[in-house]
């Protein structure tokens, strides 16, 4: 049976919020770095991670590369870093 779909559908507006910051310290924190796969993104992020450890007492940085720069971070990586990390830094290119 044919199903008719209204192509004019309308755009559903999404509203999102930022995570609350209040009071979370970088000292002792775990920070996730998400490499978007563009050239030198990993080198830049590692340098940033080193600085966060040296100067802000970050305990650990976790570097992960997403499968392709043009697609969002896959849900399993959001879940992994979201569970393990206190902060996340996605970046960067070209």
């Amino acid at each position: 049976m044919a199903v008719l779909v209204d192509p004019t559908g309308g755009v559903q507006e999404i509203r999102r919020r930022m995570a609350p910051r209040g009071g979370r310290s970088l000292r002792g924190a775990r920070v996730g770095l998400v490499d978007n796969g563009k050239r030198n993104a990993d080198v830049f992020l590692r340098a940033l991670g080193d600085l966060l450890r040296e100067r802000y007492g970050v305990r650990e940085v976790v570097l992960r590369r997403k499968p392709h720069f043009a697609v969002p971070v896959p849900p399993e990586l959001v879940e992994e870093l979201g569970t393990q990390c206190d902060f996340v830094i996605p970046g960067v290119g070209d």
Partner: protein
Amino acid sequence: MADGILFEERGIPAAAVITDAFRRTADAMARTQGLEGYPYVAIPHPISSLSPEELRVRAEQALPEVVRLLQEEVAG
């Protein structure tokens, strides 16, 4: 940008870093993702041609803003 917003929504503060050639794209993406005005750190474009030493300098320059965005409460 979209990635940062995904983590924000999960309750994890994020500081997205882009190169400044992508400002317009980043602003548009934030709007599309339902978080207009989402702040990010823009470093000079490009980085793909830089040496590790030059990238360390870029990281040093970006550091204060990255820290600010991770820790400072932002309206929105």
